[in-house]
């Protein structure tokens, strides 16, 4: 506690952490890394790498990992190069980026609402983004590109849910309930638009409604890539404060955290990430529920596993897409369907497991 003891012995990292000094010991600059979170992130990254290689190799035509990686850079058999570069690479990229964005957005929103059920998909953001994007595809809207329309839709859905609930509230329940209603309304609007449009236009809009990584546009993908980088930087900046936002409001403010600001920042990031991901993959919202859950399990409870959730989401998306492509090949199952089949039990588990709270 005294300055004497500060110089007498080096700073002891607390249990379960590594301390990385930055600069001289006197300056006291340091980072604290959670051992368990680091190990979890490494594991998830390794699994993601393996899933990515598998995704490039497997499909209607299977090739070896060597050929797949060579093909990625334009070497090797012409057919392999074509399959990897033209058919699988964009799709893989779309899966990694959208899965990461969905799960990061989910983790941010769960944390700011202090409720693990409060993911963008469940509070109607995905549906809002989808409705606006479909409107754009069908020519109902203003002729803005679908990704931009998705962003508008997600923002509108959030604003309505927010307005109806009158804020987020301590446990996010009002927000959650309002959001479920808003999501249902937007879903109905999407269906109505599809029912009233010509069959060709409806077909063009179909991938938007089920969630699929098939035929992803370059614009949407580029926007998502930029958005995810910004999202990760923003999340890193907010990470320490978000760890404190999980406490009850009085405690968080008492620790010097401007809770309202932090929540708003996290909300903006979450809405933006979700909208951009929906523009690429459609409403695959349950990734936002399963990804953070997986990361939370592997990681430690001390911090918010933002990086872990991103990696887990990317991993889940790639695996779900791969499964959809190979399980019943040549029939392809949309990734949205797979994630729903896997996600629904996880949702029930969160709701029903005994002895646990629903908070983050």
């Amino acid at each position, binding site marked *: 506690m005294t300055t004497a003891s500060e110089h007498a012995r080096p700073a002891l990292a607390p249990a379960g952490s590594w301390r990385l000094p930055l600069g001289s010991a006197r300056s006291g600059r340091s*980072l604290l890394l959670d051992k368990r979170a680091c190990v979890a992130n490494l594991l998830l990254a390794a699994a993601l790498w393996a899933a990515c290689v598998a995704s490039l190799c497997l499909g209607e035509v299977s090739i070896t990992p060597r050929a797949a990686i060579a093909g990625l850079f334009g070497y090797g058999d012409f057919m392999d190069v074509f399959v990897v570069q033209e058919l699988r690479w964009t799709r893989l990229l779309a899966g990694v980026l959208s899965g990461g964005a969905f799960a990061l957005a989910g983790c941010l929103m769960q944390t700011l609402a202090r409720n693990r059920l409060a993911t963008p998909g469940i509070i109607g953001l995905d549906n809002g983004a989808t409705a606006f994007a479909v409107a754009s595809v069908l020519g109902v809207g203003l002729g803005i590109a679908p990704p931009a329309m998705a962003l508008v839709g997600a923002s509108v859905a959030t604003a309505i849910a927010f307005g109806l609930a009158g804020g987020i509230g301590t446990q996010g329940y009002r927000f959650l309930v309002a959001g479920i209603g808003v999501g249902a309304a937007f879903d109905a609007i999407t269906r109505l638009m599809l029912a009233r449009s010509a069959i060709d236009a409806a077909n063009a809009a179909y991938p938007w409604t089920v969630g699929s990584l098939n035929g992803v546009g370059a614009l949407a993908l580029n926007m998502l890539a930029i958005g995810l980088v910004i999202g990760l930087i923003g999340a890193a900046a907010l990470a320490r404060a978000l760890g404190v936002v999980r406490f009850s409001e009085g405690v968080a403010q008492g620790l*010097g955290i401007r809770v309202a600001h932090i929540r708003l920042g996290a909300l903006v990031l979450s809405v933006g990430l979700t909208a951009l991901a929906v523009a690429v993959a459609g409403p695959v919202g349950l990734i936002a529920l399963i990804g953070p859950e997986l990361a939370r399990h592997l990681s430690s409870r001390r911090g918010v596993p933002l990086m872990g959730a991103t990696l887990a989401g990317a991993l889940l998306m790639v695996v779900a897409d791969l499964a959809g492509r190979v399980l019943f090949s040549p029939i392809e199952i949309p990734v949205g369907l797979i994630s729903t089949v896997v996600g629904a039990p996880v949702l029930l588990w969160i709701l029903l497991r005994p002895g646990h709270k629903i908070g983050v």
Partner: protein
Amino acid sequence: MTVPFEAPPLSLTSPLQAEKLCVSYGRRPVLSELDIAFPREQVTAIVGPNGCGKSTLLSALARLHTPQAGRITLERRDIRSYGARELARALALLPQNVTAPEGLTAAELIRFGRQPHQSWLRQWSAEDAAVVDAALAAADLQALAHRPLEAMSGGQRQRAWIAMAIAQQTPVLLLDEPTTALDLGHAIEVFELVRDLAAEGKTVVMVLHDLGNACRYADHLVAMRDGRVVAAGPPSEIVSRELVRELYGVDCTLVTDTDTGAPLLANVRRARDIAAPGSSIS
């Protein structure tokens, strides 16, 4: 009012004071024109019936509520002029109801108390380590340091929260009912800890329900009712049968603890039962 409240002369030496403070929830006023000052480096106990506004007062002092009128000064500066982290280094509040993220251990909880002293590039220092160790020891939690809060008893958990507030190392400490869940032994431990903190130069304010302990361990007692201060001063000077009756609607016999000189309540009963003559001396 049985005991008139006078503007305290201690306002000059008080690090924290409120003047004409009005706070309301929606349209319902909870605190009205409340004046209060807490003596420096002493222990103040706030007592009063349920719902009289004690927790609201503490929250307002920690800037969790925006007052409708009046002002609060910390070291003669309006608390509104403090930055968020600056305020958290000057004043710590342990609210009455608190929740922590699931799965956190006691040591991890206490580490969060260091948050206002840390930053993105200064995440852990030797001082942090020493303060957390000292707080664990002060709350007698070394043996339970790595146990999750969910797996602790209510009193153990409450001690962990007190330790977190201590780890914040602020000159002013506000504790809302810090001993309600504690057994006699641990409650006394907390009171003695609070006395030690005051002896080290901290100004401690705690809300208590036990008037006896408030008299025994506080230098300064503030009695509240219906959002107002009805009496303030050294316990032996302000506690009277009338005050107890006004606060809680009970009658009692007041005796003086011969060891400490603090007033003690004996033979407490509901006020309407005092008809029996000759039952009270004070």
